[in-house]
């Protein structure tokens, strides 16, 4: 191991870390914002509403993220109509295409996670809300969604980590994320171990940080499930 290669190029890795952080956080935020209404509509009994969402989820969960990214980045340029449209300057950028692919991908997975959580709502709670005369919107806001989010958290934390790992694909379309930085260092010095192990350490640290944060969040959200009067802070973590 030649550590001078790692420390000499730390600035490239930090640049990569910045890009990874931006890509992952923005796609997760927008993806989640899309997924909540989609999940609610997906539980609709109206076939015309639920079917398109099902198709969207089916496509994005059934195909590799790499192919989705290629379809958006390389694929859309095939159409002349699209190339002359106002959107083209945006879709020409690798960064935007990666972001779009990641967002749609995580939106699909998150929709499914939240849908499962919504459908897991105890029937009695829904009946009680109806009996109390709540409108559908109020019922979702006060009863179904809060408890659904709580049930969805463990699965969603997995999704966050999958998105972090999936974001390494951005390096394939020339974006310098952490993996992209490692590929640059590898090709410059031909030192694969230093280059990729450093990237691996970066990812491991971020993964552990995410797990730690989620555990904190679970500790708060599951406060009502914690045994009472134990007096210790480590219960449930």
């Amino acid at each position: 191991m030649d550590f001078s290669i790692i420390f000499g190029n730390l600035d490239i890795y930090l640049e990569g870390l910045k890009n990874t952080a931006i890509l992952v956080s923005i796609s997760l935020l927008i993806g989640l914002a899309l997924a909540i209404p989609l999940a609610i509509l997906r539980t609709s009994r109206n076939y015309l509403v639920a079917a398109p969402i099902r198709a969207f989820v089916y496509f994005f969960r059934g195909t590799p993220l790499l192919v989705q990214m290629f379809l958006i980045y390389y694929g859309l340029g095939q159409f002349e109509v699209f190339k002359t449209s106002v959107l083209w300057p945006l879709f020409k950028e690798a960064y935007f295409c990666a972001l779009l692919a990641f967002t749609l991908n995580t939106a699909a997975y998150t929709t499914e996670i939240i849908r499962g959580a919504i459908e897991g709502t105890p029937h009695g709670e829904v009946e009680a809300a109806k009996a109390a005369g709540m409108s559908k919107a109020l019922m979702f806001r006060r009863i179904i969604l809060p408890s659904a989010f709580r049930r969805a958290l463990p699965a969603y934390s997995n999704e966050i980590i999958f998105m972090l790992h999936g974001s390494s694909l951005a390096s394939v379309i020339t974006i310098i994320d952490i993996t992209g930085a490692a590929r640059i260092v590898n090709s410059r010095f031909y030192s694969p171990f230093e280059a990729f192990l450093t990237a691996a350490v970066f990812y491991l640290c971020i993964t552990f940080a995410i797990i730690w944060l989620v555990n904190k969040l679970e500790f708060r959200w599951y406060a009502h499930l914690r045994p009472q009067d134990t007096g210790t802070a480590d219960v449930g973590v």
Partner: protein
Amino acid sequence: MFSLHGYGPSILEGAFLTIAVALSSLLISMFLGIIGALAKLSRSKILQIGAKTYTTIIRGIPDLVLMLLVFFGGQVFINQVAPLVGYDEYIDINPFIAGVCTIGFIFGAYMTETFRGGILAVPAGQLEAGRAYGMKPFQVFTRILMPQMVRHAIPGFGNNWLVMVKTTALVSIIGLDDMVRKAALAAGATRMPFTFYAVVAILFLVITSISVYILNRLENRYSAGVVKA
């Protein structure tokens, strides 16, 4: 748009390679998964820590980084070690082997968790009963543990398989001619990237849909003796 300009057979060839990569990786991952699960549940502290380290670290690093590490790193490593044992020619790492080993190694970690859950779901009393009958540990494993563990492990196993099929797309990055790379080549030659990547996406959907069908049948079969609520 729907003419493939004669590249259809080439893509199909790639699809078979994709399936070959997925099935080979599946074998490796199942093997590692069973060993990992037994290690996690063993009484030996060293085995437990070893298995725990394996699953934690592998699940914390992106597949692509691991694959590039094995592909490029393995190349350097082998060519440093080979002269020491008296082999002087330059060795190229076969991307098929690098890809399959990496994917198998990664999903071995996921399989470890799945199998561990499956094993834990088998009542301990049954294993004790088996031992009380004088069965050897291996017999307890094959006659009592395995058949029941499979039922509990199938849903998780199915998920792992579906994720793994999609992960095989990454082998195109290290130069293996799977269907994604075949599509890239065809797209470059015909300037129809959307068409070819769409075909690949549909083929992936076909593979995953068939897998889901088979997995459901398997699940039914292994749940034959279970009363459903």
